[in-house]
């Protein structure tokens, strides 16, 4: 076992390598690993936040759904009420219209009756005369019975 200047050479190599490692090797990895650690921590934090956000969004969605359902129920109820109202109104209108039609028809009928009565009235004397003539075989003078005939016509 010879100790010689290799000892000193190795020590010098050691010092140079230590300086190089301290200056140019270690900081590279220290920086990268620190940065990655930070990134992972950020990622985990973001994940936790996202989870919280998700829960929040879910409750919000449930609330909104419930609100929408209630609103829909209200709208349906209103629509139903309105429909009933429309139906009632239509019924009322139809009834009124029907009555109006009936009234019109009755007026018309009355008019027709009156007209027929007028026509009948105008012709009744002729019919009566014709009838009387038939009965009396033409012995009755129309002029002589004019007064009686008009009285008869007025009574009709």
């Amino acid at each position, binding site marked *: 076992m010879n*100790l*010689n200047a290799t000892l000193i050479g190795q*020590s010098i190599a050691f010092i140079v390598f230590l300086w190089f490692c301290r200056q140019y090797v270690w900081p590279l*990895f220290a920086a990268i690993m620190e940065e990655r650690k930070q990134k992972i921590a950020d990622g985990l934090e973001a994940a936790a936040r996202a989870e919280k956000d998700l829960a929040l969004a879910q409750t919000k969605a449930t609330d909104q759904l419930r609100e929408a359902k209630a609103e829909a129920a209200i709208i349906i109820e209103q629509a139903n009420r309105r429909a009933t109202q429309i139906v009632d109104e239509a019924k009322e209108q139809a009834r009124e219209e029907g009555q109006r039609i009936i009234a019109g028809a009755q007026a018309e009928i009355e008019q027709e009756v009156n007209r027929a009565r007028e026509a009948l009235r105008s012709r009744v004397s002729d019919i009566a005369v014709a009838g009387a003539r038939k009965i009396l075989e033409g012995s009755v003078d129309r002029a002589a019975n004019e007064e009686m005939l008009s009285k008869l016509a007025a009574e009709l």
Partner: protein
Amino acid sequence: MANAANSAAETSVQEYITHHLSFLTFGNHPEHGWSFAHTTEEATAMGFWAVNVDSLGWSVFLGAAFLLWFRAVGKRASVGTPGAVQNFVEMVVEFVDARVNEGFNFKNELIGPLCLLLFFWILLMNTMDLVPVDWITRLFEIVAASVFHFEHAPFKIVPSTDPNITMGLSLSVFLMIIYYSIKNKGIGGFLGELAFHPFGKWMLPFNLIIEVPTLFAKPISLGLRLFGNLYAGELLFLLIASMLGLWQLPAHFIWAGFHLLVIPLQAFVFMMLTIVYLNAAHETHH
């Protein structure tokens, strides 16, 4: 492994192992001047001012390759989903960072990079032990002999089987321990810990007898533990390669299986002890 049978047949087992345990040493030999040592005796004769070119070269190569690779990955790295390579590198960095956070209770920007460097560098140096003992060594021997007429050139590829390498690391860590101890506790605090603990100031000599060896045992045990484990591992590979003939193949795999546990464990232990020692160097309360 494959060449071992031939080598063993040509040279004796002892020569084979001695050859594989010697370093490619470059230094000033008293007779040959500045040259590569051809034998262990020549390497010894060169004294302290000689360099093990092979182990230091592999050590620097592995350290530089790993740091440049990590830097390239880090520069291309994205914050998003990492690819396989980035994932691996980040896993290593994160593993080291977690150990530092567990064991080191103070704020010091140097400890993370220090531990990453120690852990992965030593891991790579130890892993060289799994390269079959003859592949690169034998190739280098052939090239050296044919190109440079340097017969039987040794070439060790596992830097952590060189005590110079492991002690170079542990002594550097030791200097950091002393530096941070004095910086955080002051000279008085640092010396006070040696002199007045654990028995108080009236037992000062006993405290010194306990604490001073404890202090110096730290770098020595740190360096020698790593060296011893890897040296023993390599020696067993060499014994298997030189003595078992054809039976060496399964034996190599079995031992490699055990050694596979030692390789990361020793890198881990070195890093953990560094963390513990430096943490103690930052503690100011008693």
